[in-house]
């Protein structure tokens, strides 16, 4: 079985767990989970040197999911990699659970708790710096959001990491072009994100964030003779893989409800289920899926700019 196939299987399972976890818990951020699923799958299936039997192994690669609201994706990957049981995923958000909505380090395999944006890259920088000082060879990965790049601390960390030539650091930007209320460009114009990171001195690579071969190649790119930190700008689609969720800001917050939403989400995933993957929840898919009615909220524009028309400036909202 080629390596892409293994990471594709893991990515599918992350998406399937994500749908189930948000469905059961009423939790938010399924759009972000689907967006980041391929990035996390490639990292855990192919790149990160980690040991589920020895989660605190000092030689492991460090991983920080700075966009901690996509925590369900990380929990799913860790469970599938054997850090804890996949059964525990069902407790996401529940009273007494270890699986808080945002990433918690009180769980084997999690190096750093996140949830407030703009923290993870600095912590990863500190870990990478310490590794360099101590002559250790492991790498440090941090996944951040594009909306998270609004936070000034991200750019403080970007300056610092380049200044200290932290070539053992890889930042991955889940560039799905959307944030909490709207598209990034309609919130705080990011412009040419790659040019910004290049201007900060980083080894900057742009990839299709759903193409596993491209992701793997970028993460393997340690042939970086300028000794710069690497940023992989992964162009992604929020809600990727479930058509009615794709590029719809509604699904940053909404969870798949009983009925056509859940049935439709599961059916969409089953339509592209890689060979050899077993769905732990609905092995045969949903046999008789409910179809969305005429009043189903599909394809409507829920962005802020759809209803926000200030007079004081003349910017046109971009689709």
């Amino acid at each position, binding site marked *: 079985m080629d390596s892409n196939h293994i990471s594709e299987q893991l990515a599918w399972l992350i998406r399937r767990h994500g749908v189930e976890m948000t469905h059961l818990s009423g939790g938010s951020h399924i759009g972000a989970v689907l967006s980041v699923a391929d990035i996390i799958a490639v990292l855990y299936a192919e790149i990160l040197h980690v040991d589920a039997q020895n989660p605190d192994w000092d030689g492991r690669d460090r991983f920080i999911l700075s966009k901690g609201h996509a925590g369900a994706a990380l929990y799913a990957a860790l469970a599938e990699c054997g850090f804890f049981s996949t059964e525990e995923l069902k407790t996401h958000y529940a009273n007494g659970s270890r699986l808080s909505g945002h990433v918690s*380090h009180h769980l084997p395999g999690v190096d750093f708790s996140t949830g407030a944006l703009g*923290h993870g890259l*600095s912590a990863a*920088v500190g870990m990478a710096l*310490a590794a360099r000082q101590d002559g250790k060879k492991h790498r440090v990965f941090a996944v951040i959001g594009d909306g998270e790049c609004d936070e000034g601390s991200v750019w403080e960390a970007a300056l610092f990491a380049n200044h*200290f030539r932290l070539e053992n650091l890889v930042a991955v930007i889940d560039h799905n072009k959307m944030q909490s209320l709207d598209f990034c460009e309609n919130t705080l114009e990011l412009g040419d994100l790659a040019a910004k990171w290049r201007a900060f001195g980083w080894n900057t690579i742009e990839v299709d964030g759903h193409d596993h071969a491209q992701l793997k190649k970028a993460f393997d790119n340690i042939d970086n003779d300028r000794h710069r930190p690497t940023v992989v700008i992964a162009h992604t689609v929020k809600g990727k893989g479930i058509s009615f969720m794709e590029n719809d800001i509604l699904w940053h917050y909404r969870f798949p409800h009983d009925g056509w939403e859940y049935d439709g989400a599961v059916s969409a995933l089953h339509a592209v289920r890689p060979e050899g993957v077993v769905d732990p929840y609905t092995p045969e898919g949903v046999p008789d899926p409910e179809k969305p009615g005429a009043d189903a909220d599909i394809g409507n524009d829920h962005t802020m700019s759809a209803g926000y028309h200030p007079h004081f400036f003349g910017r046109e909202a971009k689709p």
Partner: protein
Amino acid sequence: MRDTFVRTLIEIAKENSQIEVVSGDLGFGVLKPFYEQLPDQFINAGIAEQNMTGVAAGMALEGKIVFTYSIGTFPTLRCLEQIRNDCAYHEANVKIVCIGGGFVYGSLGMSHQATEDIAIMRALPGVAVFCPGDLVEAEEATKAIVNYPGTCYLRLGRGGEKRIHDKIENFQIGKAIKIHDGKRVALFSTGAIFEEIRGAEEILSQSGICPAVYTFPTVKPIDCKTILECAERFDLIVTVEEHNIVGGFGSAVAEVLSEQGNYAPLLKIGLHDTYSTLVGNQKYLRAQFGLDAAGIAKQILEALT
């Protein structure tokens, strides 16, 4: 106090290569001895306190003991969420050092005055708060926090604050230090404001008041035992801090007192929930807010009548 801290830390860091200082682009002249002697244990993080604190957390989680260094409110309020989420929640071995607690940088204006920092740091679970009152306490507190696991806040004065102690036998985290016994009034002081206490005592003695005096180099954990013992023995408890009276040292003492039934009344001497809009040096501002020796004595006498 600043130089004492640096000198002490150099001695310890020479023996312990895991100690790191990360400065927020401050410490001109002061940190030079450190980075010249221990260049591999020093990082200038630039003018970027959020990142400085996040980086410190990351380094600490890799086994280092990291001192973040800045002045006024910059190492605390500017990066409060990084202290809370990245340091304290992770029980990271980060020691936050503030040069210039209170009105140290008085003339520079309100932006540089740390007058709510004790309250805010104290409110964070897992953060121990240290406010040494003189050079000897500064040295002892520095040594103590190196060995104290987890996140600490060290609030320092700046100059050659008066020596209270020749030396301290058996400095303990969470223990007040008795300077001398007295009658009717127990006077608790934290931080460099202690230098005003001697003067206040002289003024009080003219009215026949001879307070017992204690210094509290640790505000959190607080010395409950000493507070409760004094509350039973004395007519009045007085707290003195170069800080807002809301949430700070006085409040910490009040919390202890409120948990027992029969206690002496408490007089909290500090800033009465205000910022300073006045211009002047530390000495001048203390006097304007009743935090000089005369002001402290006056408030105590008023409370006794």
